[in-house]
């Protein structure tokens, strides 16, 4: 596949490239071209060649699906009769961690190689095992375990093994996400009454409350530069909010009522989330400022639990 970029105003050649490709990879090659052009024009990396993962539900079954960044080319990586939730990409884009209820009739965390389909149990302790999220260096994951009673955040090596408890309250602590520095986690806790977002050093130390507006704030997602926090608040309905962490300025960026599961594109420009459109659970992307939105996919199924994959395919 070859392209040349021509500046019609200056009448100047802006370069080009050719790359050999296989027929099944034609879309990927076209997206590589798009990424190169986007970067030449904006100076930032494009996300056209990245992938998304999400769960579809219809006809009594659930599929964990991987697609191109525009929602095309859906490939189920896991089909089940029971729900699948909380997919999380490894930073190298090779593996997905997720929660499946099927085999053990309870929540168990698996890690699956996207290309080979090979998968392993990451956490199957007494009680529920959930909310996996990879560290930025890919060496470990945060998970929520109830093995000691209650729901608490632990870290566990990527290969599995002994989990180490991170949060220490007697309340619910869950939905942990690493900050880009790899040393701080953001998580949801109802230690103050209702669910709010907190952060604390991974190695221990005091948890600091981050969200103060509203009685119900969940599902934190950090922008790749660590400056923005996307989350869901309950205000009548459930709304996607974005907070500037330096100033604390917070604003809603949607006009829908059932927003869930936000995640940032790896260049930080877009947020992927699920919401209800015309009665159906659908996937949306929005620019981080909320100005431009688009619906992804439209096959009559319900779509939920989306997560944007990393760079590097």
């Amino acid at each position, binding site marked *: 596949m070859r392209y040349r970029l021509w500046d019609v105003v200056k009448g100047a050649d802006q370069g080009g490239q050719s790359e050999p490709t296989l027929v099944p990879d034609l879309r990927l090659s076209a997206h590589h071209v798009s990424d190169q052009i986007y970067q030449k024009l904006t100076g930032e990396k494009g996300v056209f060649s990245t992938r998304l993962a999400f769960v579809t539900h219809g006809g009594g079954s659930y599929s964990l699906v991987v697609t191109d960044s525009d929602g095309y080319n859906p490939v189920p990586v896991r089909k089940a009769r029971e729900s699948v*939730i909380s997919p999380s990409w490894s930073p190298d884009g090779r593996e997905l961690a997720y929660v499946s209820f099927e085999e053990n009739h309870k929540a168990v965390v698996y890690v699956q190689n996207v290309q080979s389909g090979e998968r392993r149990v990451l956490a199957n302790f007494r009680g529920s095992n959930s909310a996996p999220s990879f560290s930025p260096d890919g060496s470990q994951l945060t998970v929520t375990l109830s093995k000691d009673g209650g729901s608490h955040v632990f870290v566990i090596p990527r290969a599995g093994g002994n989990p180490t408890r991170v949060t220490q309250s007697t309340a619910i602590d869950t939905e942990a996400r690493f900050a880009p520095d790899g040393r701080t986690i953001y998580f949801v806790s109802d230690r103050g009454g209702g669910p709010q977002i907190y952060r604390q050093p991974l190695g221990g130390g005091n948890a600091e409350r981050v969200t103060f507006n509203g009685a119900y704030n969940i599902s934190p997602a950090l922008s790749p530069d660590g400056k923005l926090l996307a989350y869901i608040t309950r205000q009548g309905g*459930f709304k996607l909010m974005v907070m500037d962490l330096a100033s604390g300025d917070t604003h809603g960026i949607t006009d829908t009522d059932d927003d869930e599961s936000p995640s940032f594109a790896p260049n930080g420009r877009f947020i992927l989330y699920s919401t209800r459109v015309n009665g159906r659970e659908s996937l949306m992307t929005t620019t981080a400022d909320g100005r431009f939105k688009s619906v992804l996919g439209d096959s009559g199924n319900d779509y939920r639990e989306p997560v944007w994959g990393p760079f590097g395919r």
Partner: protein
Amino acid sequence: MRPKNSLTLLPAALAVAAFLGGCSSPVKLDKPAPVETRQPVQGPTDQSSQSGVTTVDTTKGNQISAANLDRVIYFDFDSYVVKDEFRPIVEANAQMLKTDRSKKEVAEGHTDERGGSEYNLALGQKRAEAVVKQMVLLGASDGQLEAVSYGKERPVATGHDEDSWAKNRRVELRSK
């Protein structure tokens, strides 16, 4: 209200013991649960009904197997307190485990559809643990019970209204 016949299914002595009280202390939790005044909703597993249609998916291994025991406990919104009307169910199941130490049960917590999947999973876990804690206080052993949660992933009623939500806020006791 709960179907009246659910009590007649219990051994009479046990039912009397339950209503004479003495063991009605609520499970201690971290925060007081908000109290709502609302009519409890009849659950979907009325054992005595011959004509009602109940979907039990046998492929999923969650059948109610001991036909003489009620096994579903319903909860108020945002609450983890086992209400008095469901104590006979908890007590009957605890008694069954106490009588036969080889028996095991799983307490599956469920929530309604509102809110995030992970936070709901934790809420369902808290409900299941509240039931297990009561059963252990009533003489079942910890090793006979496991508290797990499906969160909002397995509703029994799929409507988007309070009627459905009330049926979904529940703990199901399942033989292991």
